């Protein structure tokens, strides 16, 4: 079955911590028009919050602050795909970064559980990253009440 794009939104904002809640509000606003369950909405908001927080906290550490690009796409059959991209330092070893408790920011009480949370709450998490270029996280979830849409 070929999926067709039903709706999309793209937002770009500064990598500032106050925009973490903005990203969640944009996500919730986008989903408001669809029959998502409360649980699904909370799952997606949590995962988006983790990905955006990573771009805010890690991507531009020790360098000029840049931007974060959030894109939300909904496909036929209820496939939701959210991408969070930054243009920062990138991740040298993605596999290691995704391990539970791995963090490069212990001094700020980061727990190293961000990727684990994304994996728990979404169906699929893809991370592509290039050192000195940036990181893109793709989060996918099938919305159960839209399977037949």
């Amino acid at each position, binding site marked *: 079955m070929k999926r067709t794009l039903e709706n999309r939104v793209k937002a770009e904002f500064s990598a500032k911590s106050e925009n973490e809640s903005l990203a969640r509000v944009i996500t919730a606003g986008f989903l408001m028009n669809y029959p998502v369950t409360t649980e699904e909405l909370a799952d997606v908001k*949590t995962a988006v919050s*983790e990905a955006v927080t990573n771009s805010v906290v890690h991507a531009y550490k020790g360098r000029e602050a840049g931007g974060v690009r959030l894109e939300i796409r909904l496909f036929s059959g209820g496939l939701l795909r959210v991408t969070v991209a930054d243009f920062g330092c990138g991740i040298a070893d993605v596999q290691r970064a995704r391990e539970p408790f791995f963090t490069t920011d212990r001094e700020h009480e980061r727990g190293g559980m*961000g990727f684990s949370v994304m994996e728990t709450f979404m169906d699929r998490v893809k991370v592509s990253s290039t050192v000195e270029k940036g990181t893109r996280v793709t989060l996918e979830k099938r919305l159960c009440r839209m399977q037949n849409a």
Partner: protein
Amino acid sequence: MAIRSEERGGELLFYVSGEIDHHNSVFLREEMDAKIASSTASRVVLDLSETDFCDSSALGLILGRAREASVCGKSLLVQRPSARVRKILDLCGAGKYLQFTERREDETHT
């Protein structure tokens, strides 16, 4: 996000409502650490019954405050987290390091 605190019956209570994310946790940490250090209470209670969102930033915040409390010779009790908040805390096995209670506000005088 809003934080309210009070001290009674040998306990320092914090009530956090709204969302705990990375942005808010920086402020919460400062607010809580200052009160934990200056309080004479032997127990710190963090009531999360009105916390309706958190991400992994809350893990660092709560485990960090448990450590801070213990440095000051106090214990930390996490009160009434929602199922959602509890799920995130449990992800990292926080249940092993933290004490939880379902006790309600009107039961705090013990």
